[in-house]
Protein backbone atom coordinates (compact mmCIF):
# COMPACT_ATOMS: atom_id res chain seq x y z
CA UNK A 1 0.00 0.00 0.00
CA UNK A 2 2.73 2.36 1.00
CA UNK A 3 4.71 1.69 -2.13
CA UNK A 4 1.67 2.03 -4.32
CA UNK A 5 0.58 5.42 -3.15
CA UNK A 6 4.00 7.01 -3.23
CA UNK A 7 4.29 5.88 -6.83
CA UNK A 8 0.75 7.18 -7.46
CA UNK A 9 -0.30 4.50 -9.94
CA UNK A 10 -3.63 4.82 -11.72
CA UNK A 11 -6.41 3.64 -9.49
CA UNK A 12 -7.74 1.15 -11.97
CA UNK A 13 -5.77 -1.26 -14.06
CA UNK A 14 -2.86 -3.03 -12.49
CA UNK A 15 -0.33 -2.73 -15.29
CA UNK A 16 -0.60 1.03 -15.72
CA UNK A 17 2.37 3.34 -15.35
CA UNK A 18 2.68 5.96 -12.61
CA UNK A 19 1.45 9.48 -13.22
CA UNK A 20 3.92 12.23 -13.92
CA UNK A 21 5.41 14.39 -11.24
CA UNK A 22 2.52 16.86 -10.73
CA UNK A 23 4.78 19.89 -11.03
CA UNK A 24 6.11 18.75 -14.39
CA UNK A 25 2.59 17.92 -15.58
CA UNK A 26 1.59 21.42 -14.44
CA UNK A 27 4.48 22.90 -16.37
CA UNK A 28 3.30 21.13 -19.52
CA UNK A 29 -0.28 22.26 -18.90
CA UNK A 30 0.95 25.83 -18.41
CA UNK A 31 2.90 25.47 -21.67
CA UNK A 32 -0.29 24.36 -23.43
CA UNK A 33 -2.10 27.40 -22.06
CA UNK A 34 0.69 29.77 -23.09
CA UNK A 35 0.76 28.21 -26.56
CA UNK A 36 -2.98 28.76 -26.78
CA UNK A 37 -2.59 32.44 -25.84
CA UNK A 38 0.14 32.95 -28.41
CA UNK A 39 -1.32 30.98 -31.30
CA UNK A 40 -5.03 31.48 -30.84
CA UNK A 41 -5.05 34.78 -28.95
CA UNK A 42 -7.32 33.08 -26.41
CA UNK A 43 -6.90 30.55 -23.65
CA UNK A 44 -8.21 27.04 -23.12
CA UNK A 45 -11.86 26.10 -22.86
CA UNK A 46 -13.97 23.02 -22.44
CA UNK A 47 -17.45 23.80 -21.13
CA UNK A 48 -18.34 25.77 -24.26
CA UNK A 49 -18.73 22.51 -26.14
CA UNK A 50 -21.39 20.73 -24.05
CA UNK A 51 -23.19 24.08 -23.73
CA UNK A 52 -23.15 24.51 -27.50
CA UNK A 53 -24.28 20.89 -27.84
CA UNK A 54 -27.26 21.83 -25.68
CA UNK A 55 -28.05 24.74 -28.00
CA UNK A 56 -27.64 22.53 -31.03
CA UNK A 57 -29.88 19.80 -29.59
CA UNK A 58 -32.59 22.22 -28.55
CA UNK A 59 -32.47 23.80 -31.97
CA UNK A 60 -32.84 20.36 -33.52
CA UNK A 61 -35.89 19.48 -31.44
CA UNK A 62 -37.61 22.87 -31.19
CA UNK A 63 -35.97 25.32 -33.57
CA UNK A 64 -38.41 28.19 -33.11
CA UNK A 65 -38.30 27.97 -29.33
CA UNK A 66 -34.50 27.72 -29.17
CA UNK A 67 -34.11 30.69 -31.49
CA UNK A 68 -36.39 32.79 -29.30
CA UNK A 69 -34.41 32.08 -26.11
CA UNK A 70 -32.36 34.86 -24.59
CA UNK A 71 -29.37 32.62 -23.99
CA UNK A 72 -29.18 29.98 -26.73
CA UNK A 73 -30.97 32.10 -29.30
CA UNK A 74 -29.03 35.33 -28.94
CA UNK A 75 -25.68 33.84 -28.12
CA UNK A 76 -25.37 30.70 -30.19
CA UNK A 77 -28.11 30.53 -32.78
CA UNK A 78 -28.13 34.04 -34.27
CA UNK A 79 -27.45 34.37 -38.00
CA UNK A 80 -28.16 30.71 -38.64
CA UNK A 81 -24.59 29.57 -38.04
CA UNK A 82 -24.17 26.05 -36.69
CA UNK A 83 -23.21 26.50 -33.02
CA UNK A 84 -20.79 23.60 -33.33
CA UNK A 85 -18.73 25.31 -36.01
CA UNK A 86 -16.53 26.85 -33.35
CA UNK A 87 -12.84 26.62 -32.53
CA UNK A 88 -13.43 25.25 -29.02
CA UNK A 89 -15.24 22.26 -30.52
CA UNK A 90 -12.02 21.41 -32.32
CA UNK A 91 -10.01 22.02 -29.17
CA UNK A 92 -12.39 19.59 -27.44
CA UNK A 93 -11.69 16.93 -30.06
CA UNK A 94 -7.96 17.55 -29.64
CA UNK A 95 -8.30 17.25 -25.87
CA UNK A 96 -10.00 13.89 -26.28
CA UNK A 97 -7.29 12.50 -28.51
CA UNK A 98 -4.47 14.04 -26.46
CA UNK A 99 -5.94 12.38 -23.37
CA UNK A 100 -6.44 9.12 -25.25
CA UNK A 101 -2.83 9.12 -26.51
CA UNK A 102 -1.47 9.67 -23.02
CA UNK A 103 -3.80 7.08 -21.49
CA UNK A 104 -2.90 4.48 -24.12
CA UNK A 105 0.84 5.09 -23.68
CA UNK A 106 0.47 4.66 -19.93
CA UNK A 107 -1.90 1.70 -20.29
CA UNK A 108 -4.63 3.49 -18.41
CA UNK A 109 -7.56 2.98 -20.80
CA UNK A 110 -10.09 0.90 -18.93
CA UNK A 111 -13.85 0.92 -19.40
CA UNK A 112 -15.22 1.29 -15.89
CA UNK A 113 -17.32 3.31 -13.49
CA UNK A 114 -14.82 4.87 -11.16
CA UNK A 115 -15.86 4.62 -7.49
CA UNK A 116 -14.92 3.25 -4.09
CA UNK A 117 -15.19 -0.53 -3.78
CA UNK A 118 -17.93 -0.20 -1.14
CA UNK A 119 -20.11 1.97 -3.37
CA UNK A 120 -22.41 0.70 -6.15
CA UNK A 121 -22.09 1.80 -9.76
CA UNK A 122 -25.63 3.10 -10.11
CA UNK A 123 -25.65 5.70 -7.35
CA UNK A 124 -22.16 6.72 -8.49
CA UNK A 125 -23.52 7.38 -11.99
CA UNK A 126 -26.42 9.32 -10.47
CA UNK A 127 -23.97 11.54 -8.60
CA UNK A 128 -21.97 12.03 -11.80
CA UNK A 129 -25.14 13.03 -13.64
CA UNK A 130 -26.39 15.43 -10.97
CA UNK A 131 -22.91 16.90 -10.60
CA UNK A 132 -22.80 17.32 -14.36
CA UNK A 133 -26.12 19.18 -14.38
CA UNK A 134 -24.83 21.58 -11.71
CA UNK A 135 -21.54 22.06 -13.54
CA UNK A 136 -23.36 22.70 -16.82
CA UNK A 137 -25.66 25.24 -15.24
CA UNK A 138 -22.79 26.96 -13.43
CA UNK A 139 -20.52 27.04 -16.48
CA UNK A 140 -23.26 28.63 -18.55
CA UNK A 141 -23.92 31.20 -15.83
CA UNK A 142 -20.26 32.05 -15.22
CA UNK A 143 -19.33 31.75 -18.93
CA UNK A 144 -16.65 29.21 -18.28
CA UNK A 145 -15.36 26.35 -16.21
CA UNK A 146 -12.13 25.39 -14.52
CA UNK A 147 -10.38 25.64 -17.90
CA UNK A 148 -11.84 28.83 -19.33
CA UNK A 149 -12.37 30.73 -16.10
CA UNK A 150 -10.09 29.44 -13.37
CA UNK A 151 -7.02 28.47 -15.37
CA UNK A 152 -7.15 30.85 -18.34
CA UNK A 153 -8.64 33.84 -16.53
CA UNK A 154 -6.43 33.18 -13.52
CA UNK A 155 -3.28 33.29 -15.65
CA UNK A 156 -4.46 36.60 -17.11
CA UNK A 157 -5.13 37.84 -13.55
CA UNK A 158 -8.77 38.59 -14.42
CA UNK A 159 -10.50 39.53 -11.16
CA UNK A 160 -13.72 37.61 -11.77
CA UNK A 161 -11.88 34.44 -12.78
CA UNK A 162 -9.80 34.43 -9.61
CA UNK A 163 -12.96 34.93 -7.55
CA UNK A 164 -14.61 32.11 -9.52
CA UNK A 165 -11.72 29.77 -8.71
CA UNK A 166 -11.90 30.53 -4.99
CA UNK A 167 -15.67 29.93 -5.05
CA UNK A 168 -15.22 26.57 -6.80
CA UNK A 169 -13.01 25.39 -3.95
CA UNK A 170 -15.37 26.85 -1.35
CA UNK A 171 -18.38 25.07 -2.90
CA UNK A 172 -16.42 21.83 -3.25
CA UNK A 173 -15.20 21.76 0.33
CA UNK A 174 -18.66 22.69 1.63
CA UNK A 175 -20.32 19.74 -0.12
CA UNK A 176 -17.48 17.17 0.08
CA UNK A 177 -18.56 15.62 3.38
CA UNK A 178 -22.01 14.69 2.06
CA UNK A 179 -20.77 12.66 -0.88
CA UNK A 180 -17.67 11.12 0.70
CA UNK A 181 -19.05 7.58 0.70
CA UNK A 182 -18.73 7.19 -3.05
CA UNK A 183 -14.97 6.88 -2.59
CA UNK A 184 -15.02 4.49 0.39
CA UNK A 185 -13.32 1.17 -0.25
Amino acid at each position, binding site marked *: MNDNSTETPAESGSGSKPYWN*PYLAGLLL*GGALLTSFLIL*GAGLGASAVPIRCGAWLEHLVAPAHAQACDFFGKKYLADGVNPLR*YYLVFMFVGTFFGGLLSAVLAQR*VNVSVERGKAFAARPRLMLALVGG*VLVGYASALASGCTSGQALTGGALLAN*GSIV*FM*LCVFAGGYAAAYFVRRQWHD
Partner: protein
Amino acid sequence: MINTFYGIDQLVTAPSAKTFLAAMIVGLLFGFSLERAGFGSSRKLAAIFYFRDMTVLKVMFTALITAMLGLSLLVAVGWLELESQVYVLPTQYGAQIVGGLVFGVGFVLSGWCPGTGVVGMASGKLDALVFLLGVVIGAIIYNETYGLTSGLLGEGTVLLAFGIPRGLFALLFTLTAVGAFYFAEWVERRFSDGGKYLNTVFLRAFSIVLIIAAVAVFILPSEPGTEGAASTGSLSEQAMLEAVEAAEDHIEPEDLADAIIRGEEDLLVVDVRTSEEYQAFHITSAVNVPLPELIDYLAPYRNQGRIVLYSNGMTHPAQARDALDRLGFQNVFMLTDGLQGFLDRCLMPVSLRRERLSDTMAERVHTWRRFFLDSKTSDAVTAARVSGV
Protein backbone atom coordinates in the same frame (compact mmCIF):
# COMPACT_ATOMS: atom_id res chain seq x y z
CA MET B 1 5.89 43.03 -30.83
CA ILE B 2 4.92 39.60 -31.98
CA ASN B 3 1.50 38.89 -33.32
CA THR B 4 -0.64 36.09 -32.09
CA PHE B 5 -1.32 34.02 -35.16
CA TYR B 6 -5.05 34.38 -35.14
CA GLY B 7 -6.70 36.38 -32.40
CA ILE B 8 -10.19 35.88 -31.09
CA ASP B 9 -11.94 37.91 -33.77
CA GLN B 10 -10.53 35.84 -36.57
CA LEU B 11 -11.12 32.65 -34.60
CA VAL B 12 -14.76 33.44 -34.23
CA THR B 13 -15.78 35.59 -37.18
CA ALA B 14 -13.57 34.15 -39.90
CA PRO B 15 -12.92 30.55 -38.88
CA SER B 16 -11.01 28.42 -41.34
CA ALA B 17 -9.49 24.97 -41.53
CA LYS B 18 -6.28 26.51 -40.22
CA THR B 19 -7.78 28.06 -37.10
CA PHE B 20 -9.62 24.82 -36.38
CA LEU B 21 -6.44 22.80 -36.84
CA ALA B 22 -4.53 25.15 -34.54
CA ALA B 23 -7.23 24.80 -31.89
CA MET B 24 -7.09 21.04 -32.23
CA ILE B 25 -3.32 20.97 -31.77
CA VAL B 26 -3.62 23.11 -28.65
CA GLY B 27 -6.30 20.67 -27.47
CA LEU B 28 -3.96 17.71 -28.00
CA LEU B 29 -1.38 19.30 -25.70
CA PHE B 30 -4.11 20.20 -23.21
CA GLY B 31 -5.58 16.69 -23.07
CA PHE B 32 -2.17 15.02 -22.96
CA SER B 33 -0.99 17.10 -20.01
CA LEU B 34 -4.26 16.59 -18.10
CA GLU B 35 -4.02 12.83 -18.50
CA ARG B 36 -0.31 12.77 -17.56
CA ALA B 37 -1.22 14.58 -14.35
CA GLY B 38 -3.75 11.88 -13.49
CA PHE B 39 -6.83 13.92 -14.29
CA GLY B 40 -8.43 11.10 -16.24
CA SER B 41 -9.46 9.78 -12.82
CA SER B 42 -12.42 11.23 -10.91
CA ARG B 43 -11.16 9.63 -7.74
CA LYS B 44 -7.87 11.48 -7.97
CA LEU B 45 -9.62 14.76 -8.82
CA ALA B 46 -12.05 14.50 -5.92
CA ALA B 47 -9.28 13.53 -3.49
CA ILE B 48 -8.25 17.18 -3.03
CA PHE B 49 -11.56 17.77 -1.22
CA TYR B 50 -10.67 15.07 1.34
CA PHE B 51 -7.03 16.19 1.78
CA ARG B 52 -5.80 12.83 0.55
CA ASP B 53 -4.14 13.77 -2.70
CA MET B 54 -3.47 17.42 -3.48
CA THR B 55 -2.39 16.87 -7.09
CA VAL B 56 -5.15 19.15 -8.40
CA LEU B 57 -3.79 22.07 -6.43
CA LYS B 58 -0.18 21.40 -7.44
CA VAL B 59 -0.91 20.98 -11.15
CA MET B 60 -3.36 23.83 -11.38
CA PHE B 61 -1.21 26.35 -9.57
CA THR B 62 1.91 25.31 -11.48
CA ALA B 63 0.11 25.69 -14.79
CA LEU B 64 -1.46 28.99 -13.81
CA ILE B 65 1.81 30.47 -12.56
CA THR B 66 3.76 29.19 -15.56
CA ALA B 67 1.37 30.75 -18.05
CA MET B 68 1.01 33.94 -16.01
CA LEU B 69 4.76 34.48 -15.72
CA GLY B 70 5.30 33.58 -19.36
CA LEU B 71 2.66 36.08 -20.45
CA SER B 72 3.92 38.73 -18.06
CA LEU B 73 7.49 38.39 -19.34
CA LEU B 74 6.29 38.72 -22.94
CA VAL B 75 4.29 41.80 -21.96
CA ALA B 76 7.19 43.26 -19.97
CA VAL B 77 9.64 43.04 -22.86
CA GLY B 78 7.00 44.54 -25.14
CA TRP B 79 6.39 41.51 -27.32
CA LEU B 80 2.76 41.19 -26.44
CA GLU B 81 -0.04 43.67 -25.84
CA LEU B 82 -2.30 41.85 -23.45
CA GLU B 83 -5.61 43.60 -23.79
CA SER B 84 -5.54 44.02 -27.55
CA GLN B 85 -4.01 40.68 -28.51
CA VAL B 86 -5.43 38.23 -26.02
CA TYR B 87 -9.09 37.76 -25.23
CA VAL B 88 -9.62 38.47 -21.54
CA LEU B 89 -12.79 37.29 -19.85
CA PRO B 90 -14.87 40.14 -18.48
CA THR B 91 -15.55 40.20 -14.78
CA GLN B 92 -19.14 39.69 -13.64
CA TYR B 93 -18.86 39.12 -9.93
CA GLY B 94 -22.45 38.03 -9.28
CA ALA B 95 -22.44 35.35 -11.98
CA GLN B 96 -18.92 34.23 -11.17
CA ILE B 97 -19.48 33.93 -7.41
CA VAL B 98 -22.78 32.04 -7.68
CA GLY B 99 -21.51 30.05 -10.68
CA GLY B 100 -18.30 29.18 -8.85
CA LEU B 101 -20.09 27.93 -5.75
CA VAL B 102 -22.55 25.80 -7.74
CA PHE B 103 -19.70 24.56 -9.93
CA GLY B 104 -17.74 23.49 -6.85
CA VAL B 105 -20.67 21.44 -5.54
CA GLY B 106 -21.10 19.81 -8.95
CA PHE B 107 -17.35 19.15 -9.12
CA VAL B 108 -17.25 17.27 -5.82
CA LEU B 109 -20.46 15.34 -6.55
CA SER B 110 -19.27 14.12 -9.92
CA GLY B 111 -15.52 14.15 -9.45
CA TRP B 112 -15.20 15.82 -12.86
CA CYS B 113 -15.02 19.19 -14.53
CA PRO B 114 -15.61 19.61 -18.28
CA GLY B 115 -11.95 19.48 -19.40
CA THR B 116 -11.02 16.53 -17.22
CA GLY B 117 -14.32 14.86 -18.10
CA VAL B 118 -13.20 14.70 -21.73
CA VAL B 119 -9.94 13.06 -20.70
CA GLY B 120 -11.84 10.71 -18.38
CA MET B 121 -14.08 9.74 -21.28
CA ALA B 122 -10.99 9.08 -23.39
CA SER B 123 -9.74 6.82 -20.57
CA GLY B 124 -12.94 4.78 -20.70
CA LYS B 125 -14.62 6.19 -17.59
CA LEU B 126 -18.38 5.79 -17.92
CA ASP B 127 -18.98 8.23 -15.05
CA ALA B 128 -17.21 10.88 -17.17
CA LEU B 129 -19.52 10.21 -20.09
CA VAL B 130 -22.60 10.48 -17.86
CA PHE B 131 -21.15 13.64 -16.31
CA LEU B 132 -20.77 15.29 -19.73
CA LEU B 133 -24.36 14.39 -20.61
CA GLY B 134 -25.32 16.08 -17.35
CA VAL B 135 -23.41 19.20 -18.39
CA VAL B 136 -25.44 19.38 -21.61
CA ILE B 137 -28.66 19.02 -19.59
CA GLY B 138 -27.48 21.67 -17.12
CA ALA B 139 -26.84 24.10 -19.98
CA ILE B 140 -30.35 23.49 -21.32
CA ILE B 141 -31.83 24.07 -17.85
CA TYR B 142 -29.86 27.32 -17.60
CA ASN B 143 -31.22 28.39 -20.96
CA GLU B 144 -34.80 27.60 -20.00
CA THR B 145 -34.53 29.44 -16.68
CA TYR B 146 -32.33 32.25 -17.93
CA GLY B 147 -34.54 34.96 -16.47
CA LEU B 148 -34.06 33.65 -12.91
CA THR B 149 -30.40 34.59 -12.76
CA SER B 150 -29.93 37.11 -15.55
CA GLY B 151 -29.75 39.80 -12.88
CA LEU B 152 -26.40 38.36 -11.82
CA LEU B 153 -24.78 39.01 -15.17
CA GLY B 154 -24.06 42.73 -14.92
CA GLU B 155 -22.08 44.74 -17.41
CA GLY B 156 -19.01 42.59 -17.66
CA THR B 157 -15.93 44.74 -17.90
CA VAL B 158 -12.34 43.61 -18.07
CA LEU B 159 -10.78 44.02 -14.62
CA LEU B 160 -7.24 42.85 -13.96
CA ALA B 161 -5.10 42.14 -10.90
CA PHE B 162 -7.50 43.91 -8.53
CA GLY B 163 -5.92 47.26 -9.34
CA ILE B 164 -2.51 46.19 -8.04
CA PRO B 165 0.43 46.66 -10.47
CA ARG B 166 0.71 43.54 -12.57
CA GLY B 167 4.30 42.74 -11.61
CA LEU B 168 3.59 43.02 -7.90
CA PHE B 169 0.46 40.91 -8.18
CA ALA B 170 2.38 38.28 -10.16
CA LEU B 171 5.08 38.14 -7.49
CA LEU B 172 2.56 37.84 -4.64
CA PHE B 173 0.62 35.21 -6.57
CA THR B 174 3.79 33.19 -7.18
CA LEU B 175 4.79 33.33 -3.52
CA THR B 176 1.26 32.20 -2.58
CA ALA B 177 1.52 29.29 -5.02
CA VAL B 178 4.89 28.19 -3.65
CA GLY B 179 3.41 28.36 -0.15
CA ALA B 180 0.48 26.28 -1.41
CA PHE B 181 2.87 23.63 -2.81
CA TYR B 182 4.52 23.16 0.57
CA PHE B 183 1.14 23.20 2.28
CA ALA B 184 -0.14 20.54 -0.14
CA GLU B 185 2.88 18.32 0.45
CA TRP B 186 2.55 18.74 4.20
CA VAL B 187 -1.19 17.94 4.09
CA GLU B 188 -0.53 14.78 2.09
CA ARG B 189 2.10 13.63 4.53
CA ARG B 190 -0.15 14.42 7.46
CA PHE B 191 -3.42 12.87 6.25
CA SER B 192 -2.30 10.15 3.87
CA ASP B 193 1.00 8.62 2.90
CA GLY B 194 1.78 11.05 0.09
CA GLY B 195 3.73 14.27 0.26
CA LYS B 196 6.80 12.75 -1.26
CA TYR B 197 8.14 16.06 -2.60
CA LEU B 198 8.23 17.71 0.82
CA ASN B 199 11.83 18.58 1.75
CA THR B 200 13.15 17.48 -1.62
CA VAL B 201 15.80 19.32 -3.59
CA PHE B 202 13.46 19.15 -6.55
CA LEU B 203 10.66 21.16 -4.95
CA ARG B 204 13.12 23.65 -3.51
CA ALA B 205 14.77 24.20 -6.90
CA PHE B 206 11.39 24.38 -8.65
CA SER B 207 10.13 26.97 -6.18
CA ILE B 208 13.30 29.05 -6.53
CA VAL B 209 13.05 29.06 -10.34
CA LEU B 210 9.43 30.25 -10.16
CA ILE B 211 10.30 32.97 -7.65
CA ILE B 212 13.24 34.18 -9.76
CA ALA B 213 10.95 34.43 -12.80
CA ALA B 214 8.38 36.31 -10.71
CA VAL B 215 11.03 38.73 -9.41
CA ALA B 216 12.11 39.34 -13.02
CA VAL B 217 8.50 40.16 -13.93
CA PHE B 218 8.31 42.43 -10.90
CA ILE B 219 11.51 44.33 -11.75
CA LEU B 220 10.86 44.74 -15.46
CA PRO B 221 8.61 47.69 -16.28
CA SER B 222 5.12 46.47 -17.04
CA GLU B 223 4.62 48.81 -19.98
CA PRO B 224 7.97 49.70 -21.49
CA GLY B 225 6.36 51.59 -24.36
CA THR B 226 4.83 54.27 -22.17
CA GLU B 227 7.99 54.79 -20.14
CA GLY B 228 10.08 55.32 -23.24
CA ALA B 229 7.68 57.86 -24.68
CA ALA B 230 7.48 59.90 -21.51
CA SER B 231 10.75 61.74 -22.07
CA THR B 232 11.01 65.31 -20.87
CA GLY B 233 10.11 68.26 -23.04
CA SER B 234 8.14 68.35 -26.24
CA LEU B 235 8.54 65.68 -28.88
CA SER B 236 10.63 66.78 -31.80
CA GLU B 237 8.75 67.29 -35.06
CA GLN B 238 10.40 64.15 -36.40
CA ALA B 239 9.32 62.10 -33.41
CA MET B 240 5.87 63.57 -33.66
CA LEU B 241 5.54 62.60 -37.31
CA GLU B 242 6.70 59.13 -36.40
CA ALA B 243 4.09 59.01 -33.67
CA VAL B 244 1.50 60.11 -36.21
CA GLU B 245 2.66 57.40 -38.59
CA ALA B 246 2.32 54.81 -35.84
CA ALA B 247 -1.04 56.29 -34.85
CA GLU B 248 0.23 56.54 -31.30
CA ASP B 249 -1.70 59.73 -30.83
CA HIS B 250 -4.98 57.96 -31.54
CA ILE B 251 -7.29 56.11 -29.25
CA GLU B 252 -9.59 53.53 -30.76
CA PRO B 253 -13.33 53.93 -30.05
CA GLU B 254 -13.49 50.52 -28.37
CA ASP B 255 -10.63 51.41 -26.03
CA LEU B 256 -12.20 54.73 -25.15
CA ALA B 257 -15.55 53.09 -24.44
CA ASP B 258 -13.93 50.54 -22.13
CA ALA B 259 -11.84 53.20 -20.40
CA ILE B 260 -14.93 55.30 -19.66
CA ILE B 261 -16.91 52.31 -18.43
CA ARG B 262 -14.20 51.15 -16.09
CA GLY B 263 -13.94 54.72 -14.81
CA GLU B 264 -10.30 55.30 -15.75
CA GLU B 265 -8.90 57.90 -13.41
CA ASP B 266 -7.81 61.24 -14.86
CA LEU B 267 -9.42 60.51 -18.21
CA LEU B 268 -10.72 63.72 -19.72
CA VAL B 269 -12.92 63.36 -22.78
CA VAL B 270 -13.38 66.63 -24.63
CA ASP B 271 -16.05 67.28 -27.23
CA VAL B 272 -14.82 70.16 -29.43
CA ARG B 273 -17.99 70.52 -31.50
CA THR B 274 -20.54 73.28 -31.16
CA SER B 275 -22.74 73.28 -28.10
CA GLU B 276 -25.84 72.53 -30.22
CA GLU B 277 -24.23 69.37 -31.50
CA TYR B 278 -23.07 68.51 -28.00
CA GLN B 279 -26.56 69.01 -26.63
CA ALA B 280 -28.02 66.70 -29.24
CA PHE B 281 -25.67 63.87 -28.39
CA HIS B 282 -22.29 63.38 -26.78
CA ILE B 283 -20.25 60.57 -25.36
CA THR B 284 -21.09 60.01 -21.70
CA SER B 285 -18.69 61.89 -19.40
CA ALA B 286 -17.42 64.19 -22.20
CA VAL B 287 -17.12 67.90 -21.54
CA ASN B 288 -17.87 70.46 -24.22
CA VAL B 289 -15.02 72.89 -24.86
CA PRO B 290 -15.00 75.08 -27.99
CA LEU B 291 -11.66 75.14 -29.81
CA PRO B 292 -10.75 78.76 -28.93
CA GLU B 293 -11.02 77.99 -25.20
CA LEU B 294 -9.28 74.67 -25.39
CA ILE B 295 -5.77 75.70 -24.34
CA ASP B 296 -6.92 77.60 -21.26
CA TYR B 297 -9.34 74.88 -20.27
CA LEU B 298 -6.79 72.09 -20.60
CA ALA B 299 -3.89 73.86 -18.89
CA PRO B 300 -4.47 72.18 -15.50
CA TYR B 301 -4.59 68.77 -17.19
CA ARG B 302 -1.26 69.08 -18.96
CA ASN B 303 0.43 65.68 -18.73
CA GLN B 304 -2.05 64.56 -16.10
CA GLY B 305 -3.85 61.41 -17.17
CA ARG B 306 -5.20 61.13 -20.70
CA ILE B 307 -6.99 63.81 -22.65
CA VAL B 308 -9.09 62.56 -25.55
CA LEU B 309 -10.35 65.02 -28.13
CA TYR B 310 -13.15 64.28 -30.50
CA SER B 311 -15.28 65.99 -33.09
CA ASN B 312 -17.44 64.58 -35.84
CA GLY B 313 -14.39 63.76 -37.91
CA MET B 314 -10.68 64.01 -37.22
CA THR B 315 -9.42 67.30 -38.69
CA HIS B 316 -10.17 69.65 -35.81
CA PRO B 317 -8.89 67.35 -33.09
CA ALA B 318 -5.73 66.71 -35.12
CA GLN B 319 -5.01 70.42 -35.50
CA ALA B 320 -5.76 70.99 -31.84
CA ARG B 321 -3.53 68.12 -30.86
CA ASP B 322 -0.61 69.54 -32.84
CA ALA B 323 -1.06 72.93 -31.23
CA LEU B 324 -1.20 71.37 -27.78
CA ASP B 325 1.83 69.21 -28.52
CA ARG B 326 3.85 72.33 -29.27
CA LEU B 327 2.78 73.63 -25.86
CA GLY B 328 4.26 70.56 -24.23
CA PHE B 329 1.15 68.42 -23.86
CA GLN B 330 2.11 64.79 -24.29
CA ASN B 331 -1.11 63.28 -23.09
CA VAL B 332 -3.48 64.32 -25.86
CA PHE B 333 -5.13 61.66 -27.97
CA MET B 334 -7.62 61.84 -30.82
CA LEU B 335 -10.55 59.50 -31.11
CA THR B 336 -10.01 57.46 -34.27
CA ASP B 337 -12.64 58.41 -36.85
CA GLY B 338 -14.23 60.84 -34.41
CA LEU B 339 -17.73 60.57 -33.07
CA GLN B 340 -18.78 58.86 -36.30
CA GLY B 341 -16.28 56.10 -35.62
CA PHE B 342 -17.54 55.75 -32.08
CA LEU B 343 -21.12 55.41 -33.28
CA ASP B 344 -20.23 52.96 -36.04
CA ARG B 345 -17.86 50.79 -34.08
CA CYS B 346 -19.25 50.83 -30.56
CA LEU B 347 -22.89 51.76 -30.66
CA MET B 348 -24.26 50.39 -33.92
CA PRO B 349 -26.60 47.49 -33.06
CA VAL B 350 -25.17 44.08 -33.81
CA SER B 351 -28.09 43.29 -36.08
CA LEU B 352 -27.35 46.21 -38.40
CA ARG B 353 -23.73 45.33 -39.01
CA ARG B 354 -22.53 43.88 -42.24
CA GLU B 355 -19.79 41.78 -40.66
CA ARG B 356 -20.64 39.04 -38.23
CA LEU B 357 -19.36 39.78 -34.76
CA SER B 358 -17.83 37.28 -32.41
CA ASP B 359 -19.86 36.42 -29.33
CA THR B 360 -17.40 38.33 -27.19
CA MET B 361 -17.53 41.34 -29.47
CA ALA B 362 -21.32 41.25 -29.59
CA GLU B 363 -21.33 41.09 -25.83
CA ARG B 364 -19.07 44.14 -25.68
CA VAL B 365 -21.36 46.03 -28.07
CA HIS B 366 -24.32 45.23 -25.82
CA THR B 367 -22.37 46.52 -22.84
CA TRP B 368 -21.45 49.74 -24.62
CA ARG B 369 -24.97 50.32 -25.84
CA ARG B 370 -26.36 49.78 -22.39
CA PHE B 371 -23.86 52.16 -20.88
CA PHE B 372 -23.77 54.91 -23.49
CA LEU B 373 -27.34 54.81 -24.70
CA ASP B 374 -29.78 53.40 -22.19
CA SER B 375 -29.60 56.03 -19.52
CA LYS B 376 -29.35 58.83 -21.96
CA THR B 377 -30.84 58.11 -25.33
CA SER B 378 -34.24 59.47 -24.55
CA ASP B 379 -32.75 62.49 -22.87
CA ALA B 380 -30.21 63.01 -25.60
CA VAL B 381 -32.75 62.77 -28.36
CA THR B 382 -35.10 65.18 -26.74
CA ALA B 383 -31.97 67.16 -25.96
CA ALA B 384 -33.47 69.42 -23.37
CA ARG B 385 -32.20 67.91 -20.16
CA VAL B 386 -28.63 67.15 -21.08
CA SER B 387 -26.83 70.18 -19.86
CA GLY B 388 -23.21 69.11 -19.92
CA VAL B 389 -21.18 67.47 -17.23
